């Protein structure tokens, strides 16, 4: 059993890595904005808006991301609405993570004690001021551990976009592996790069968490 590794593979993998990071950043930010809106809709809205938001969350959490990706990229194209692979990837993954993030936000907002709202209103704050200056600053601190998990999860999950033709880290690895017939070596290196990225993100976010930590507002970490 002989292992082969060529240094020239690394720059190619690096270019894939850049795409992976960009894709993760794009879909996670899109998901954060949409997720927050969904959470607020699920908490405070009634009637059709509540039902739509709930149905959205249930659908995207209950079905495979791979299927969602293909619905956006090939499914819509079949009906005349087509996007580039990059746009499809960002849309599908952004819509997916929004549903998960909505649930984390919702849980965190609910975890902010009711007395906090009462106190804010008693000072004469409006609903919007109460959410903006009292509820969100606390909820965002509470949500951070779950949110870091989600970020890591999405980073790993971007590896499916090679199936719609994007040269991300996984996609580049696959090309190198199959042209050189060195599957084990290349995928092992790809795995290690993902692992390093996960470690960097995890520890980076723990630093952020420690920095914005407030006594008495402990986020529960597993």
């Amino acid at each position: 059993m002989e292992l082969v590794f060529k240094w020239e593979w690394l720059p190619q993998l690096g270019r894939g890595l850049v795409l992976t990071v960009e894709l993760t950043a794009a879909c996670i930010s899109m998901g954060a904005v949409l997720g927050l809106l969904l959470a607020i809709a699920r908490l405070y809205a009634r009637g059709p808006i509540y039902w739509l938001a709930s149905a959205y969350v249930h659908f995207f959490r209950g079905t495979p991301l791979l299927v969602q990706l293909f619905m956006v990229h090939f499914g819509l194209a079949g009906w005349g609405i087509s996007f580039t692979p990059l746009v499809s990837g960002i849309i599908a993954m952004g819509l997916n993570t929004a549903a998960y993030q909505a649930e984390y936000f919702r849980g965190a907002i609910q975890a902010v004690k009711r007395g906090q709202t009462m106190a804010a209103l008693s000072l004469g704050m409006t609903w919007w001021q109460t959410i903006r200056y009292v509820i969100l600053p606390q909820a965002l601190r509470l949500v951070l551990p779950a949110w870091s998990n989600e970020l890591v999860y999405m980073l790993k999950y971007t590896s499916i976009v090679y199936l719609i033709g994007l040269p991300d880290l996984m996609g580049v690895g696959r090309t190198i592996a199959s042209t050189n017939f060195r599957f084990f070596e290349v995928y092992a290196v790809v795995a290690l790069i993902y692992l390093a990225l996960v470690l960097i993100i995890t520890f980076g976010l723990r630093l952020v968490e420690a920095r914005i930590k407030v006594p008495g507002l402990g986020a529960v970490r597993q």
Partner: protein
Amino acid sequence: MTAGDWRGLVEGIPSLLGGLGINLQILLGLIALGFFAGIVVALIQVYAPRPLAAVAIGYEWFFRGVPEMVLLMLVYFGLRQFHVPISPFIAAVIALGLRSSAYQSQIFRGAIQAVGSNQMMAALSVGMTRFQAIRHVILPQALRLSIPPWSNEFSSVLKDTTLTSAIGVIEVFKRARFIMGRNYALALPTFMVVALFFLALTYLGNWGLGALERRYRIPGLEAKGAGERF
């Protein structure tokens, strides 16, 4: 779309259902592997001497940090490269099962720690061995506490079985792609049907696990809510 187009989908449904059966077989295999390996890894992490516990923690880190897709490729094509005659199905069960064992070990470890060392001391004080204490006192409580987070892991791996299409398992998603290949206009409704299959299975599974939890619930031993994507 014409009526003829739709017929392509209707006629494809038995094949899709057959594919779904394969997803369920993979699910069963990977959950079982992940369950037993997960318990062993969790027990090592909590009770084994430090060097061994560190290895178990490293194991968990590796399988939690590497994308499922890369693991699938690594196991299937990696082993094939060294002429190990492994089938896509077995490779899928191993790769996803090992990944799941890492996540399940995290769940079990949390539950074992939540049961607490007082229970262990009480068991030892009535003359049980450590193994007996784990088997008869710690695990019965820890497994009950594990059900709610475990149902998250369940619905996560259920959906992840579609990834095995990438190494050539002819499961439901792969079959949906075949239908798409014959008629692009059918892609959206076909994937929607597949999505609904999974939605139904997710709810069925969660309902079953909820019933299981209620069936074995003991007053005073309740898990505190966890809604995270593991």
